[in-house]
Every structure is written in C-alpha cells, then in structure tokens.
C-alpha cells in the first residue's frame, strides 16, 4: 500500500539532522514562541524569521521544493479561518464594494491584522515542518521523554506510531474490496458500507490491542518502561543552541 511516510527524509546526513534531538527541539520551540510574540507592527521581523528558516532548510539538505509544497498545503486552512478578519475588523476603509444589500469594506486595520496572523501561522507551521522532516520520529519521542514529558504519554504515542500504518493498510484493503464490489448504489448505501468498515476496524483494532498486551505480558512487561537514549551533548550542539538563541533574540531586540 502507498503511504506518505512520516519521516522519509529523516535519514539524510546533514548538520541539522545530526543535531542532538533535545537541542533541536528546544531551538525550534524557541523559534516558534518568538514568532508568536512578534509585535503586530513589526512586519520586517517576519521576513527575518523566514530567512532564518530557509537558511536552516538549506543547511538540512532537504529539497526546497518539497518543503514549499508541503508547507503550502496548510495555507487553505489558514485562509479559511482568517480571511473574514479583513472585512469584520472596524477601522479606516481602504476599499469598499456592495453586493445588493450587503456592503463589504476592507479596512486598513483588518488587512494588517490578517497579514500578521497569516504570517505567524505560516512561519510556525514551516518551522514545525522542518523539525519533523529532519528528525526521526522515535528519536523525537525519546528527546521529549528526556525533557520530562511523562513516559506513559510517550509510550502511547509510540504505540500509535507503530500501529498507525498497520491499521491504515487494513482500512485501505477493506476499502479496495468494497470499491471493487460496489459500483452502483445510493449515497446512503455507500455511507453505511463505509461505516460498517470502520466498525470492523474498531473490533479488529481492539482485539489487536489485547493480543499486543498479552504478548507484552508474555515477555515480562510489568508496566515500567525502559528506553535507551544514545545521544550525548556535544560542543557542536551547544554552539548551535547558542547561535539559534542569539539569532532569534537579535531579531527580537532590533526588529520586534
């Protein structure tokens, strides 16, 4: 079956990929939070952040087109949720037109707020995307665990990651079988067939979870979790953290 694999680009050898996962997480989170706290008036700051992020993309050797095409897929969501701010925010009108009884007016304040929000949302999702593309998901989870995220949550997420593709495969197989057998039929008939498929998937997933649990018990699972974390902090990582933090704070102090 075909999947859009989560971390197919995480095995590239590059400076960004080789960073210690904890350091990478902290630097990217700092970047995201500092983008969020940009003052609305400081539009040039967004340009500076974008340049910083694309410098990181260049360092990570991930194809630029891939980053762009993946990141553009979030734009429709951002637009749907924020486009109406242009019309609703009261302020000095820039452009007015009337549609029958409705009168729409685009205001200066609305436009500024919209650009501010859209830029923040896009840049943050871009940084998150780069973090995910350059880090193996299981290493990311281990780093989160090292950063004191409760290990039960980490275990649940890593189980989810492990069985996600198994269940997806099962679902796609059922869907293909259904599609090849049902050609005609009303919309309601198809909806019912798909819902029954989900029901079957639930029952199978539940039974699989019990099988997994019994297998874990048979191998001596006692509720405790032990993981190996084979990363060490190197001078290189600390240098990256220092550079990242100072770059972000320079943007913050001088532009906003």
């Amino acid at each position, binding site marked *: 079956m075909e999947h859009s694999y989560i971390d197919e680009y995480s095995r590239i050898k590059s400076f960004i990929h080789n960073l210690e996962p904890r350091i990478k997480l902290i630097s990217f989170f700092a970047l995201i939070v500092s983008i969020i706290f940009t003052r609305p008036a400081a539009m040039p700051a967004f340009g500076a952040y974008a340049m910083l992020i694309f410098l990181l993309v260049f360092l990570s050797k991930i194809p630029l087109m891939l980053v762009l095409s993946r990141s553009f897929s979030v734009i429709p969501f951002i637009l749907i949720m924020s486009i109406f701010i242009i019309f609703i925010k009261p302020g000095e009108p820039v452009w007015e037109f009337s549609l029958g009884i409705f009168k729409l007016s685009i205001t200066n304040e609305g436009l500024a707020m919209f650009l501010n929000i859209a830029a*923040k949302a896009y840049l943050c999702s871009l940084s*998150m995307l780069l973090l995910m593309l350059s880090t193996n998901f299981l290493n990311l989870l281990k780093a989160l665990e090292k950063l004191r995220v409760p290990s039960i949550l980490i275990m649940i997420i890593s189980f989810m990651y492990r069985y996600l593709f198994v269940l997806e495969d099962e679902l796609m197989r059922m869907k293909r079988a259904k599609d090849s057998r049902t050609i005609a039929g009303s919309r309601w008939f198809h909806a019912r067939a798909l*819902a029954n*498929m989900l029901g079957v998937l639930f029952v199978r997933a539940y039974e699989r979870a019990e099988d997994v649990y019994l297998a874990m018990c048979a191998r001596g699972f006692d509720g405790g979790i032990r993981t190996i974390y084979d990363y060490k902090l190197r001078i290189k990582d600390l240098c990256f953290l220092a550079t990242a933090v100072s770059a972000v704070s320079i943007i913050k102090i001088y532009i906003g």
Partner: protein
Amino acid sequence: MHLPDGFLTPHIWIPAWLASLGGLSYCFRKASLALKDRMIPLMGVMSAFIFAAQMINFPVAGGTSGHLLGGVLAAVLLGPYAAAVVISVVLMVQCFIFQDGGLTALGANILNMSFAGALGGYMSYAFIRRFIKNSKGILIATAIASWLSIVLASLFCAMELACSGLLPLKAALTAMVLVHALIGIGEAVLTCLVVSFVLKVRPDLLYKPEGSGLASNSQSHKL
C-alpha cells in the same frame, strides 16, 4: 477546527495550555486506574484507530465529502477518560507530524475537541442513557451527544477567537455554531452507524457507564 499558531493571544493560549495539562493528567490517572497496565497498548492502538477513521471520506451531498471526528465514538466505545486521552494523543500527533493545528494553540485545541467535545459529549450521552435504557437508547444518546460535541467544540473555539480580539463575539458565535450545527448532523449519522454496527457484532466492547473499567477483560472470540 484545528486552530493554527498566531490566532490566539498569549492570555488565551497560556491558560488553555495549563487547563488542558491539568485536565489531561486527571484523565490519565482515571483511565489508568480502570485499565491498569493494559492502558498503554490499548490507548496506543485506539489512537491509531481514531486517526485512521478520520481518513475515510464519506460522500455528502453534491460531490463534497466529510470525515468522522470520532470524539463521541471514542467515548461511547472506551469511556470518557480514555476517550479524552485518545483524542488528545491524536491532536498531538496531528500537530507535530502534519502541522494540523499549532504548537501554542495545541492546548486550546485539546481543550476544545478533547474536553469540550469528547468529555462534554459523553456527559450528555450518559445523561440520556439514564432515561432510555435499551439499545435504542444507546443510539439516540449517541446521535444527540455527537451533534452536541461538535457544537460545543465550535462554541469553545469561537469564544477563544473572540477573546483574542479577532472577531466580535456575536459574529464569531453565530458563524461558527451555525456551520458546525450542520457538520454535527453528519457526525451524528456516522457515529450512529458505527456504534450500531459494533452493537450488533460485539456489544460487549461498548463501555458500560455504571461498571468499572472496560466491558471485556479477557481475550474473547475472533470475528
């Protein structure tokens, strides 16, 4: 309804993060009391199930399609606390891997969809179940609860947006709630169909509100 970064102001998203962290740790404790050490594999596989279920597109009128959100489905099948855990885990994975919803807005998203949606929906489900006890009652309660869960989540979302100063409260409430009242009808129909199927083949898997923990404790027959 996944809020991206940048939409909420800090005086909304920081309290939302704190509230959802507190709520999550409570739900984790409650769920692990009921499930004990089965919790990790069960919650992991069920999160993967909800995630996969959200990928199936159902045909709606005129060429459009929609998918299940699964908050009340998880709550009816697994119980309220386990459902809150499962939906939160799905939201976290969507935020990290698919950039669906922002990191700073994750707390608000968990608050909206996991607590207001799944837990709030389950409360109405349990309330209705108290009056109609038979299996028809399960379906009626599921339908109402899943419609309500979508509307409640959108209500929370609209209030957060309005408190962030993005929109006037009245406009945000009417727009969000009206749109999601329609989406909720689809969610109610789909959740009912799936629950009625499970009710037919494995009624023992449904969460029993009065009992402790999950319905089936032992390895039972295969389909």
